[in-house]
């Protein structure tokens, strides 16, 4: 065991200690503080679990999570089956479209659906003009709308995990069932689906945790009685009421505990149930079926329907971005570039900040991520598993927890929060697992003998890494870099707690514009701008290799 590795590992731990362990411990300590006194105790928690309102929000969040998971699973199973099994024209396009929400900011979808499905949105107006309904229908304001929007947003996680499950099942498992006399649906229920459960669960846990993380969607839809939204309101709006602030922090800690527990439980279960090792030699794509004409048409219609829902987001935002005064009309009539003029003339800093912060976060990410991947994959430094564990755990942490803990931790003790560098630092630690997972995965695929051959030829470890490993890892690293950038670029839940005047990013701008005036035009234009930037970045990933699908999956984990 070389000394260099130990040194490297200590440096990485130092970063983790400063940027993860320290702020999170402050968060926990703070949650025990009793307002009005200097002491601490479990009063806040007792109150939280005795107060009917907080209990209600807790319960609401669980119900919402369950519903979102249920709905996305119900819609996801047929979709995943079609994508994984049917020979279909335009499969790549459909797949890319359906996976789009994974890289789009959640708030973009919310705005688009409000414009389209709102009280006097396009859908209602069209229906009323056609004389089909008298009064507008309430499509999205309320619990059902929340479930719909969040389920659609998280659908890619379900679809991707099921597709990966379906394609990795050894075809002979299903053939054996077929030969044994089980046809069609029965085979699917008794063999196919159970074999998919481990990979399904990996995606499902992310879906279930999403409502514990997403405070903004409920807020925009006028629903606040959910844990993250309550926490946000308590902390951001009631900073003068110390008690409410503490209760907000408690809500954040409770959310985090739920997230971490479920995340770990799912990991443990998946690890226990992994079936893949059992079968030998699978084909690359698994089973592919030529569906009959009826199935073929239905599957086309179904994929088309979902793809159309997803496509609504960029289309509606685009329409809204290039127009003004789009009210009480199914489609805009007054076209203008005014929204973009406002963004570019009045607040170009937003775009600049977004690129600057995400860019710096990205550099931190690479500087940290590559050595971390090396330590985890290639060495036996003690504590490397713990390092891996800590970083992976960040996937499960709600963004709001990181934002709040940074706010608390870097205000007095280490006064980093007064400098703008706190923004990229927060983005870095929030999105770190994305980069690491991709670097990690490509490192695992790199045959160690290629590196050993270099070392045997007399080249030291570091130069071997530079000469051999890095060039071979480049593709994976680049995909990871772009994915990291996309995720950092749209980050809001962490940044919203930390920004000060002049540090606003695009997502914050979107939120503030909506919040101030309920004027969607500028928010929509900003969101549209983000979609365009994201799309360009995705094209870069696709160009680098691996395709959008793989890139998105490599980065799939938790969002916001």
């Amino acid at each position, binding site marked *: 065991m070389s000394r260099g590795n130990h040194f490297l590992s200590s440096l990485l731990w130092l970063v983790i200690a400063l940027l993860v362990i320290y702020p999170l411990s402050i968060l926990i300590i703070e949650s025990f503080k009793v307002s009005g006194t200097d002491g601490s105790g479990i009063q806040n928690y007792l109150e939280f679990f005795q107060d009917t309102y907080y209990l209600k929000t807790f319960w609401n969040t669980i119900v919402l999570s369950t519903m979102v998971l249920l709905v996305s699973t119900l819609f996801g199973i047929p979709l995943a089956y079609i994508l994984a099994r049917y020979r279909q024209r335009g499969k790549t396009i459909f797949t890319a479209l359906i996976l789009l929400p994974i890289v789009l900011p959640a708030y973009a979808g919310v705005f688009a659906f409000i414009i389209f499905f709102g009280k006097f949105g396009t859908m209602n107006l069209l229906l009323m003009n056609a004389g089909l309904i008298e009064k507008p229908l309430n499509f999205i304001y309320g619990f059902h709308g929340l479930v719909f929007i969040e389920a659609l947003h998280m659908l890619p996680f379900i679809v991707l995990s099921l597709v990966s499950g379906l394609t990795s099942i050894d075809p*002979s498992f299903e*053939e054996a069932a*077929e*030969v*044994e006399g*089980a046809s069609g649906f029965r085979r699917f229920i008794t063999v196919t689906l159970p074999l998919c*459960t481990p990979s399904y669960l990996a995606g499902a846990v992310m879906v279930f945790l999403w409502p514990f993380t997403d405070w903004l969607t409920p807020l925009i839809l006028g629903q606040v009685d959910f844990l993250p939204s309550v926490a946000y309101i308590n902390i951001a709006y009631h900073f003068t009421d110390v008690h409410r602030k503490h209760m907000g922090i408690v809500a954040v800690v409770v959310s985090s505990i739920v997230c971490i527990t479920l995340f770990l439980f799912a990991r443990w279960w998946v690890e226990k149930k992994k*079936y893949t090792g059992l079968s*030998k030699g699978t084909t690359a794509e698994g089973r592919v079926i030529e569906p009959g004409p009826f199935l073929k048409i239905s599957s086309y219609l179904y994929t088309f329907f979902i793809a159309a829902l997803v496509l609504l987001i960029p289309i509606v935002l685009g329409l809204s971005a290039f127009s003004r005064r789009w009210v009480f009309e199914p489609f805009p009539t007054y076209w203008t570039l005014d929204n973009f003029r406002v963004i570019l003339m009045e607040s170009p800093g937003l775009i600049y900040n977004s690129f600057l912060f995400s860019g710096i976060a990205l550099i931190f990410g690479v500087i940290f991520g590559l050595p971390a991947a090396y330590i985890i994959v290639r060495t036996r430094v003690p504590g490397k598993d713990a390092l891996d564990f800590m970083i992976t755990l960040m996937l499960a942490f709600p963004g709001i927890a990181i934002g709040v803990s940074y706010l608390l931790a870097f205000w007095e003790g280490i006064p980093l929060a007064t400098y703008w560098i706190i923004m990229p630092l927060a983005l870095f630690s929030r999105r770190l697992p994305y980069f690491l997972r991709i670097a990690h995965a490509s490192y695992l695929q790199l045959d160690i003998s290629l590196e050993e051959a270099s070392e045997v030829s007399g080249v030291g470890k570091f130069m071997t890494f530079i000469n051999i490993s890095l060039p071979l890892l480049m593709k994976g690293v680049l995909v990871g870099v772009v994915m990291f950038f996309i995720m950092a670029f749209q980050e809001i839940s962490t940044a919203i707690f930390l920004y000060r005047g002049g540090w606003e990013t695009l997502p914050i701008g979107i939120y503030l514009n909506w919040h101030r005036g309920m004027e969607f035009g500028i928010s929509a234009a900003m969101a549209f701008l983000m979609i365009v930037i994201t799309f360009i970045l995705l094209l870069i990933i696709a160009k680098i290799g691996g395709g959008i699908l793989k890139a998105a999956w490599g980065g799939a984990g938790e969002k916001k």
Partner: protein
Amino acid sequence: MAYIEIRNLVKRYKKVTAVNRIQLDVEKGELLTLLGPSGCGKTTTLRCIAGLEKPEEGDIIIDGKPMISEGFVQPSKRGIGMMFQNYAVWPHMKVYSNIVYGLKLQNLSRQSIKEKAKNVLELVGLQGLEERYPGQLSGGQQQRVALARALIRNPKVLLLDEPLSNLDAKLREKMRFEIKSLVKRMGITSVYVTHDQAEAMVISDRIVVMEKGNIVQIGSPPEIYERPASRFVADFIGAMNFIPGEVVGVHSGTNEVYVRTEFSEKLLCKSTGGDVTTPGQKVYASIRPEDVEVFAEPPQSGENIFKGIIANKAYLGNFLFLFININDTAIRVQAPHQLPQEEGHELYLSLNPQKCIVLPE
């Protein structure tokens, strides 16, 4: 009427023809092996019988019932048992559930399912392991689960797709005999796919040798070994010396053929019958290493005696392989230990005319 009749079967994958219009009959109770190198179409043929592949042309008739021409019969309706190369034992089900999976789809009482399971578990020697998950079993045990699952419904036809290829050598040899005796005892018509010629020899009533989607020879193991139809078959099954030459004389009554080779003007060989050889034809005089007799001193009498020099040797424990050059032609022989073995030593070879066959080039 054969029990399984394969008629004009054609299966293409995009542009590759995996099975090229083959004809094959499998008799009732027979254990037939499809043998050939990878990509020869043996597995595709088997999967067509199972119904897991839809052939482009042709028909498969099982027990008088057409599987394709009168509407495609789904695998689940064919009443077959199948063993897969990778066992395909469902990892999320216990051994018992694996075995009775197909039975449960039939309307049987719990009691009779239990009984059948007990019988078949005994048959394959898996008693006491019913409650285990496949992940807790060894490769050989998973193999037995797969076999039990294939046998429990008393299938009309048993299909085995390289079932032993994932086992280690010792276990593989043991399982060969077990599968054979089990299948024979139950009298199930079986089609067995393998690329292992030794396995095919041990297990089969008849062997079908395939190459590039075609059947090149059908016969019992001795027939295939002793009278291979082509250089391909002779080379694939066992070891064979191929001595290039040209036919110079044919004795149609006795099947005797004279071949001119690099080291002999008139090498006496035997024609295997099928192909009528004519003078001037390019052929291979072919003889197996164990059929070449080796002497330290020139033998008093006999045909096809040549002097050679040891070029190389390989020690294999129970015998010795010598590579002996007759002029520039290397002949591999299987020699007893007591002979001189040093490289460069002279020895005398007798290429037994009864065993030296002529194969078309």
